[in-house]
């Protein structure tokens, strides 16, 4: 069995000298530090240092400040980029960012609780209530439709920058926080023994300019290549899918104004999804081979749009053929779709144009850290796990981490624990690890199950999908799971 968590090998605490006097003078704390180094260190002691100012890191900072239990903790957040980009965000109604996340009602509930959701620009958030998922080889389909009247939203499509803007506005409303942006982490080491205060178990973060921040608890919200995770000596395991995710913001023919649907088709090269944004905007996430991804990025806007429309309508054989064409795809699509029977109710509205400079791609990976905690360190979000985007769960898992961590820290404060100790943190790990592991596993299996056109597999998975589609009870359970209901 794997150990529940790994402890960093720590130097044994040497017993004090036999002189009993020293034991007690040790606790006599002198308010006037003796040396310059000590002054420097004592001024830079923090209860929580968060590395990373993305949605996960900012959610944690915001929830720490907004909870009456943890609001007295001294918190600093370090971010390499300029947070003014999010703070002074002035969106235009004519375009949408290509970095969009699907926030479950569970995540939105938490963001509401910490007071951030009211600062998110709601006119740029699109809720959807239906989901159409089908097999690109057999055509077997599963439909999910929530009752709009019961406001049963599956998810809220939200630009990441909108969320970041909301979190930063909420932090400002709470009286600000120590946000140290445009600053890199130059190194992490353990502190020193200062006599009255022994910081040898405290991680000390050195930032641009040489300043050092000692952390009772260092939180890595610093992404998939987390320096905090590396310092903590926590392994992250998994594999690369050999697939790239191509994202873009597109405009479609008019979509229904109230009830909106997300569409996802599983092709043997990977799933393609079109998720609604306000008006007739939509965000595209197309997982495919690196070769096709590179090809897609080279296409003219007209040909790119034709490829997207093909991918939802034509046979996977047609798509594979067209993906190799260097031009004239638009004409090819017109001809092929005219001879292909298409159920227009089961496919998304036709894509008309792609927003300029919105096409981007990134490699798809599955990673899961062996542990989320070690003494005085915790990982949240992508630093702890990276999931295939097909279920739109990445950011929701990060927010789930923050929700669990803040609950853990509140309990620790209320029961007088040292919030950095593994004894305080272990409930965060036990709550969140297995929940995330299950989701990562299911998403990973789905990717693999649908990553083939091999007939027996297609037959079995189609049978399964049709069977699930016929069982309302099971479907509603799946939807509740997807919506993050607890």
């Amino acid at each position, binding site marked *: 069995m794997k150990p529940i968590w790994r402890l960093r090998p720590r130097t044994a605490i040497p017993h004090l000298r036999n002189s009993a006097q020293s034991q007690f003078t040790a606790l006599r704390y002198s308010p006037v530090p003796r040396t310059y180094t000590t002054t420097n260190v004592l001024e830079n002691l923090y209860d929580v240092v968060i590395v990373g100012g993305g949605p996960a890191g900012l959610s944690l900072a915001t929830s720490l400040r907004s909870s009456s*239990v943890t609001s007295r903790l001294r918190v600093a957040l370090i971010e390499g980029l300029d947070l003014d980009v999010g703070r002074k965000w002035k969106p235009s109604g004519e375009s949408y960012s290509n970095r969009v996340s699907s926030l479950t009602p569970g995540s939105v509930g938490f963001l509401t609780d910490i007071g951030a959701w009211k600062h998110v620009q709601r006119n740029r958030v699109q809720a959807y209530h239906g989901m159409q998922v089908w097999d690109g080889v057999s055509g077997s389909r599963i439909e999910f439709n929530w009752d709009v009247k019961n406001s049963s939203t599956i998810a809220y499509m939200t630009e990441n920058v909108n969320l970041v803007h909301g979190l930063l506005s909420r932090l400002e409303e709470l009286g600000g926080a120590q946000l140290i942006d445009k600053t890199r982490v130059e190194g992490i080491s353990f502190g020193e023994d200062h006599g009255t205060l022994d910081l040898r178990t*405290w991680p000390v973060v050195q930032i641009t300019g040489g300043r050092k921040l000692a952390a009772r608890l260092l939180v890595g919200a610093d992404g998939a290549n987390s320096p905090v995770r590396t310092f903590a000596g926590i392994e992250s395991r998994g594999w690369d899918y050999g697939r790239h995710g191509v994202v873009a913001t597109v405009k479609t023919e008019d979509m229904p104004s109230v009830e909106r649907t997300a569409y996802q088709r599983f092709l043997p090269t990977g799933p393609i999804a079109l998720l609604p944004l306000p008006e007739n905007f939509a965000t595209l996430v197309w997982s495919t081979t690196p070769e096709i991804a590179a090809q897609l990025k080279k296409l003219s806007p007209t040909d790119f749009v034709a490829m997207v429309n093909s991918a939802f309508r034509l046979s996977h054989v047609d798509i594979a053929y067209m993906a190799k064409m260097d031009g004239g795809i638009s004409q090819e699509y017109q001809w092929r779709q005219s001879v292909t029977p298409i159920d227009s109710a089961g496919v998304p509205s036709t894509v008309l144009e792609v927003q300029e400079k919105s096409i981007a791609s990134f490699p798809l990976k599955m990673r899961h850290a062996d542990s989320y905690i070690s003494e005085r360190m915790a990982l949240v979000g992508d630093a702890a796990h990276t999931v295939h985007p097909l279920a739109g769960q990445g950011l929701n898992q990060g927010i789930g981490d923050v929700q669990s961590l803040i609950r853990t820290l509140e309990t620790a404060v209320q029961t007088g624990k040292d919030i950095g100790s593994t004894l305080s943190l272990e409930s965060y790990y036990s709550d969140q690890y297995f929940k995330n592991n299950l989701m990562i596993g299911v998403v990973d299996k789905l990717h693999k199950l649908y990553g083939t056109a091999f007939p027996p597999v297609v037959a079995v998975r189609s049978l399964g999908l049709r069977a699930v589609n016929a069982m309302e009870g099971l479907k509603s359970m799946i939807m509740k799971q997807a919506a993050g209901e607890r």
Partner: protein
Amino acid sequence: MPSKIPPLHRVRPSLIFLSNFGTNSIRAHSTSSVDQTEISHFANLASTWWDPHGSSRLLHLMNPIRLSFIQRCLLNGSPIPDNSSALTSPGKPDPPVEAHSADNTQKLRFLDIGCGGGILAEALARLPGTESVIAIDPSEEVLSVALEHARQDPMLTGGKLRYINATIEQLPKELEGQQNQFDVVTLMEVIEHVPRPSSFLTATMEHVKPGGWLVLSTIARTWTSFLTTKLVAEDILGIVPRGTHNWSKYINVEELREFFGGKEGWKDVLVMGCVYVPGFGWREVRGGEKVGNYFFGVRRGLKEGAGEK
């Protein structure tokens, strides 16, 4: 009750008091409440006291339920009127932060006897409603671990938490003309390690303020507790170091009730049974005090002179 107990065991003369007890250390004298075998047993465990998977894991896990029991006692009778919010149990909406920010609220002084590595003492000292914690233990080795650990936390190095290598009999009864008494005196998992519990309790009671609480936790002497704490916990599962418990020293709740019933002014009694469920931690169990681990809180009457027969 005997007021003076003949010396049974000698502790090393290493008694040092912190400044507020005066720098002239009191000469250590032999004392009644300490069993030398117990001291060496815990001294051997000292190095792993703060290891989250070490010998004291069950005590670490027990800490939140200890605090909620202390909180329950304080809610049943406040040592100082209008101040009962010093502690907040998990899940309670009223956060300790509020109590702290209002500086006019009276804060509590704690005495933790047999503090060991400082699991309870540190937690009490971190709570914003705490004025100070004095934590005493007869084992020098164990205390050095407590001191060394407390040094890692700037919240504890400001003088709020003080450790003293002493037995309860060695603790001065008066300080600067004032009685050396506390709002809450705690004896967590201590009394079952003491050779003469009645004289030990009598000495302890003198340090409880009128209106204050004496809070202890221990194990009932039953066949179940023999099976769970000796056979299963120590011998079979090994989650408690072998030799930690001496079943014949366990004390039943009726014996405590009877003891305090004979003391004038010690009437309010609160009892809470609890059980450790592997995988879930410590849980309160109604009637559990008749079976195994339990908490016992008794309040000293407000009347002057209460607590002495």
